[in-house]
């Protein structure tokens, strides 16, 4: 038993549906769900104008269609399960505190911004500012886990305070910029200027990475932490690490030099053993 929303027709203008969360629909009837507010441009509309709704009072919510112009899907989710069959717009899972959101497609910019807890998985690519801070906020993600099977844009994990972000492909420039704490794992290439202004965050780079000059080399070793982390990501999210990356070795760099310098970049360096 789940609540299903299907997009009636393609939409040509972004719509915002803040507050459509599985924990909320768990208490609502079919008619109440169809009556939830939608913002489109300067007009107010209701969910039923764009979606056919079937099912009610279930914490399992399924949304289908080409949703790349639908913003704020699952924002503020506190529990339950949201399955998005198709690409999501901006701010999917923003500020979520619990539950599980699965995007079976791409996610727009600011996926998981200001997230506090729960899990957000994107099977395709994610846009810019993945798990970063909401406009004006001092902190990005403060808890929970984001896993992107594809690649992510610029500013991934910027200002993250706590939590785990794993990207199966590449990340763009300025990854983990001003990260306070928490972890960003990049399976592919890490873009220019990673970890600038990092206080005590971790970047685990399994692919190519240019270490900023403000990071200082410490040693090359086999961190059990990385092994445990990659094992966890595989077992929980099915995201497989490259052969040999469990054993390492990893080069550890401490930085960023301008701030306390408790941050780190752990760069997989196969062949340097």
């Amino acid at each position, binding site marked *: 038993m789940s609540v299903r929303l299907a997009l009636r027709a393609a939409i040509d203008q972004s719509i915002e549906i803040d507050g459509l969360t599985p924990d909320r629909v768990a208490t609502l009837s079919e008619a109440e769900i169809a009556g939830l507010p939608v913002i489109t441009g300067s007009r107010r509309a209701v969910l039923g104008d764009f979606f056919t709704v079937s099912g009610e009072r279930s914490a399992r919510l399924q949304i289908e269609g080409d949703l790349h112009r639908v913003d704020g899907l699952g924002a503020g989710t506190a529990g339950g399960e949201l399955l998005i069959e198709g690409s999501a717009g901006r701010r999917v899972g923003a500020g979520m505190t619990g539950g599980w959101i699965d995007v079976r497609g791409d996610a727009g910019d600011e996926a998981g911004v200001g997230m506090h807890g729960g899990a957000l998985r994107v099977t395709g690519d994610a846009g810019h500012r993945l798990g970063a801070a909401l406009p004006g906020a001092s902190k990005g993600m403060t808890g929970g886990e984001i896993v992107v099977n594809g690649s992510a844009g610029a500013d991934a994990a910027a200002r993250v305070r706590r*939590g785990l972000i794993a990207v199966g492909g590449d990340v763009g420039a300025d990854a983990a910029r001003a990260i306070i704490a928490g972890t960003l794992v990049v399976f592919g290439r890490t873009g220019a200027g990673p970890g600038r202004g990092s206080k005590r965050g971790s970047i685990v780079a399994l692919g190519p990475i240019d270490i900023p000059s403000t990071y200082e080399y410490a040693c090359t070793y086999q961190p*059990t932490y990385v092994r445990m*982390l990659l094992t966890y990501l595989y077992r929980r999210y099915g995201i497989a690490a490259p052969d040999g990356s469990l054993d390492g070795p990893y080069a550890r760099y401490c930085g960023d030099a301008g701030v306390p310098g408790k941050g780190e970049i752990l760069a997989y360096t196969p062949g340097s053993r």
Partner: protein
Amino acid sequence: MEIRGVFIQDTFAEAFGMRAARLVITARTHKWAREAALKLTGFATSVIACKCEAGIERELAPAETPDARPGVSVLFFTMDMDSLGKRLTERIGQTVLTCPTASCFDGLPDAADRLSAGRALRVFGDKLQISKVVGGERYWRIPVMEGECLLQESFGVQKKGVGGGNFLILAESGDSGLAAAEAAVRAIEGMPGVILPFPGGVVRSGSKVGARSYTGMIASTNDAYCPTVRPRTKTELPDGVNAVLEVVLDGLDAPTINGAMRAGIDAACRPGVKAIGAGNYGGKLGPYHFHLRQVMAETAT
């Protein structure tokens, strides 16, 4: 009741409620995981003088451990929560933290009661330690000369642990008693949720509460079962019994003890064994009573 000619005495094992933790110790190889586990569970036979009881539960394949390395599962018992935390911190700190490549994880993730035994150890890192949260669990990365020691912060506690399940093997000779005890241990080893805290799983110095001749003793020799003083004491030994060995069991719950006692006693019923008995204190000290004939009801002939 008899099993293959071995008399099962109409008595019961008296056991106590204990607080239990399960530790998953991993390392680069089984050898090093085992080295850490052997040290951690060393000198942990009885709470009377060791302050805890511990033993290796089983070996773990990489697919069963959090970091996909070979591991060893250890069960750890004390009488109360407070001492469980203290003993865990002491022992993890002196054995896992010190052991090359070893890590320590919680093996009771579903337990509602938790102890932060790993948290106290973080300060060894002298503020250079790193905290990481993965899957909602906090881990500590403590810098050591080899690299890093990874420890989980919180450990689950099983409040319904049972300590002191036991049975006595009353044998015709020392050799036949030892062979029967070894067979019993082999039958129990590897069963989930149970450990045998004594050397090789076997105790020769069963005790009674207090002493006949010394005041202030917590425990003294169980003279009723000591063959050499048979004429000098109120013996419990049947004719023809010349050696008694005890198998003591600690488990995560009473049904686990019950099942392990059944397997162990069944294996101990072999030629050269006269009877199987059990240790108790009249039933007033421990809340758990394992009546041998009830335990063995399914296997008796």
